[in-house]
């Protein structure tokens, strides 16, 4: 038995907001793969829970009229990976969440829960940063939409007001159209492990595939919250697609990141793999965008598998 004082099951989004107002100390539970484990660890003894698990209206992926991709916050990782719209427009997100935990965790874990935890290592978060995702929050005062970089306040803390729930994650058409991306998770094990570092990159190339029109580089675990490598991005924009450019962009990343020492890895190691993963992910993103990287570099980059 879980040490739960009371469980309130929401029947709709409006009902969830009402329950959260009535029970201000209650915590939201979505898929539960984090909350229930924390209760087991004794961290939230006697907790009151508002369950939003049954709100099927928050499940699934849609394409809105203006081309915005809308991911319901309760969509499970495995459903994101399998979704035809995700595969068509932002396949890298499906690939990233396919590296969370193991198969059973991917069936229960939700993308909303993964972002609301405010954890830097979340496999979905760096990719959502890379795609300039917008977080949709619904509360007593209505709906607000904020860029994902503003949603993360500090480690473990996101901008979720009292009685508010995250209802969707939006990727605007201008964010994905013409872009191709790649995500690399570095972890000690292939399954059931948390990222030592995650790097998600997408690029837009010029029509002749010779120039970087835009580059977006995002990291998990390179700082207390997921982040973008803004200096490295700015450096690379407009430069020719070449091994040289990719190498230099990777070198510039150190101006942006601030990893720490932890039992998983040292700061120095994280700095090193930040650079290497950037170069590898960038090489692959270029390839997926239809560009070519000279063989010397792809050989160097594609060598030892991580």
């Amino acid at each position, binding site marked *: 038995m*879980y040490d739960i004082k009371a469980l309130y*099951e929401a029947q709709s989004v409006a009902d969830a907001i009402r329950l959260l107002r009535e029970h201000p100390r209650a915590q939201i539970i979505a898929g539960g793969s984090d909350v*229930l484990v924390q209760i087991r660890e004794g961290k939230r003894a006697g907790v009151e829970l508002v369950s939003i698990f049954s709100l099927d209206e928050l499940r699934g992926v849609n394409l809105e009229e203006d081309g915005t991709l809308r991911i319901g916050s309760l969509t499970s990782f495995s459903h994101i990976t399998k979704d035809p719209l995700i595969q068509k427009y932002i396949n890298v997100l499906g690939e990233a969440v396919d590296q969370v935990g193991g198969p059973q965790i991917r*069936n229960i874990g939700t993308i909303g829960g993964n972002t609301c935890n405010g954890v830097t290592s979340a496999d979905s978060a760096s990719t959502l940063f890379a795609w300039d995702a917008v977080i949709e929050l619904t509360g007593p005062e209505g709906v607000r939409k904020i860029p994902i970089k503003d949603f993360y306040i500090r480690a473990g803390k996101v901008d979720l007001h009292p009685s508010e729930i995250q209802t969707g994650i939006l990727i605007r058409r201008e964010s994905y159209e013409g872009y191709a991306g790649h995500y690399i998770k570095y972890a000690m094990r292939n399954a059931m492990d948390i990222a030592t570092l995650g790097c998600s990159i997408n690029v837009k190339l010029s029509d002749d595939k010779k120039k970087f029109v835009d580059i977006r580089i995002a990291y998990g675990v390179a700082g207390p919250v997921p982040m973008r490598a803004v200096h490295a991005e700015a450096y690379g924009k407009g430069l020719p697609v070449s091994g040289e450019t990719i190498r230099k962009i990777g070198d510039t990343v150190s101006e942006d990141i601030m990893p720490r020492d932890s039992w998983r890895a040292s700061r120095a190691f994280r700095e090193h793999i930040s650079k290497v993963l950037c170069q590898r992910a960038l090489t692959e993103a270029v390839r997926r965008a239809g560009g070519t990287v000279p063989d010397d570099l792809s050989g160097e980059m594609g060598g030892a598998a991580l």
Partner: protein
Amino acid sequence: MTEKRTSENHQYKLVRCRINGAERETMVDVRASLTDMLRNDYSLTSVKKGCEVGECGACNVLIDGECFNSCIYLAVWADGKDILTLEGLMGPDGKLSDIQQAFIDEAAVQCGFCTPGVIMSAVEILENAEKTGREYTRGELRKLLSGHLCRCTGYENILNAVEKTMKKRLAKKAGK
């Protein structure tokens, strides 16, 4: 929601669901995990309590055709769902299913504690393979089974059992 509170002020809810093909209903303490409900209310003891934090897969069951670790799934969430446990694989005459037999033939069972959970994952994998006609590679099978810990077998025989059953089922399907 049908709900009541007992004298100790515990909160209960009526949970109606289908378990191994039969419609069932019972009052469940809202603090219970699905593992608790399946074991205590329905005596389905193939559902094991291993880590109880979603790491080992010993409690894995199918809910509406997908695998879930029932230890981190609230029992009340099972309302309206279709649940399959290892007990549900048995044929009407008590015969083992092909995948269970394969585990025996390949010596993929030692202490057996992880086995029901692994077999339920195999059931999902095999059904997907049959549905799509896709033959998974060994590497893909490893990934699909990676949510299970086995302290005894070293996994090779488990992989052999799942792979052989998949190939048999696909061959049978192609033959028809």
